[in-house]
């Protein structure tokens, strides 16, 4: 869960990250019928990097879903 995903020493490159983001967004749409936007965070990664590792990504997705910050 803590293995680096994207960023310095990350396991995935930018193209793979985009594929991953879209796959996650699609899966959540299918399973929960909600649309979240993960992609925005990929464009300008500042101090907060939800794609740092699997753990931060899961936490970030949970926050997006629980905050209701999505298009139903």
């Amino acid at each position, binding site marked *: 869960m803590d293995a680096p995903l994207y960023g310095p020493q990350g396991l995935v490159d*930018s*193209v793979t990250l*985009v*594929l991953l*983001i*879209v*796959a996650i*967004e*699609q899966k959540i749409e299918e399973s929960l019928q909600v649309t979240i936007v993960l*992609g925005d965070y*990929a*464009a300008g990664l500042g101090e907060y990097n939800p794609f740092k590792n699997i753990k931060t990504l899961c936490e970030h997705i949970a926050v997006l879903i629980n905050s209701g910050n999505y298009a139903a």
Partner: protein
Amino acid sequence: MPRKLSGLLISDFTLDVLKSFFSNQMDSSSYDVRISPFGQKINSFRHSPHIFGTEPLDFVVVWNQITAVIPSFQRILCFEEVSQQELLSECDQFISAIKEASTFSRYFFVVNWALPGYFRGYGPVDLRKSNGWQHALLTLNKHLAQELAHIPNVYLLSSERWLQIVGEKACDPRLWYMSKIPYDMGVFKLAAEDIKAALRACLGGSRKLVILDLDDTLWGGIVGDDGWQNLRLGGHDAQGEAYADFQRALKSYQKRGVLLAIVSKNQENIALEVFDRHPEVILKKSDFVGWRINWKDKTENITDLLKELNLTQEAAVYIDNSPIERARIQESLPGVLVPSWTQNSLLYTKAFLSLSCFDTAFVSDDDQKRSQMYLQEKDRSSLRAKAPSMDEWLSSLNTTITIEPLTTTNLPRATQLLNKTNQMNLTTRRLNEGEFLKWSQDPSHRVWIFRVEDKMGDSGLTGIASFACNGQEAKIIDFILSCRVFGRQIENAMMETLIREAKKLKIQKLTGVYLPTEKNIPCLEFLSERCGSTKISDHTFMWDTKKDYPRTRFITVKEVETFNL
């Protein structure tokens, strides 16, 4: 280890995902693939020919979005009027660039155009109006297909099929906006599979034979227990209809040159009764080039059948509903392709039609007659079994060989033979039509094409021999004979032709260097034992044209006059 196939992917969008599918370690071939600089349109390659590099390429894939290479299509998408002439003229520029660029690679694959499923255009009148999105797309794709069909080493691949299989997710705009990737990973996976299958076909790796189990594979039920009357085959029954459709699909493939055979654990007379008596059976006994229906181990039966048909494991596909039998064959005969097979017979036809192993790079008249030719071969073998001696059998066949030069007419079939033949093949060199023609036109090179016919039937164009002259010596470059006809002294007649032609050219010494592969041992056996050669080293053989070699009896040789290519 076979060398890697070198490829170049040219596109105006991000193709990293497609490239990643060429680095799969599980592939039987390995690839060295690179991507052209981002945003590359084939139309503009003339300004940057360096993209092809200096090393010869085995294949190029051109995958350009329609709006990138047909600018007026963008206007069509904006519902503006565009004349048909303007559209086709832009398409012609694209085609002309492909024609020119195709010389940089042995095989050239162009992906046709498709629109995302959510592009509705005019709706119900979209296909009625010439400026309808789908109408214009169909027009352009048809024009592209017609024009590219004239370039022998260019193959058009269908992207619609990939998009259709992947479905709604095929074109996700999110991928485009974030990474300039127009398609889902599934689309690229299918594209890579099709490109690999096409390369396999071009390089002679297409499968030729389907070996089938019977019970619960060709029909529902166990014929030995249920009797032919109670099998599920045809009729008003979902299972029965599906089995009949599967047989129809097999029969249609047989018509395009794929051979059918049976290996089944059954009692032969009871199993064969189905083909004679069942009112809804589609396949007949005469559709199968051979069968082994008995209680022996299937590995032994398949090996025996392949030997009878003069085919290698790599030519065969084995279809059986039993996972245990499949695993056994997969393990004992690793060259045979054993596709994983669904347990649901309603999906058999889909599973069969989805196999890419029969993809072919060329269709000839001979392909369509192949099954018939194998049946003729069976008749020859039974005649052989009855004949008192080999000589009497050969004499009874009344074989005629027609020798002709390589021409533009026989070039496609000759190239197909050159690229498909594995066993009786001296050097196993693979060339596309353009390369073969160019090679044959060198003044120091000579090529002969052989057609074989006997009283059982016409075996068609089945042999190629060539040599390269160097002063008073010549080196055999190709010595190729279809597995359907070798063993009938045709190969001896071919060798005689080479020696005779060498003499005519005042060549004193003819040599042949055997290049070993996993499959061409029959060629080495012929060179070592049956053609009067002098062995210079393990793999080098020599013929002194001043010497008299024993003439082939029983074969009439006809020569077609040389004419210009």
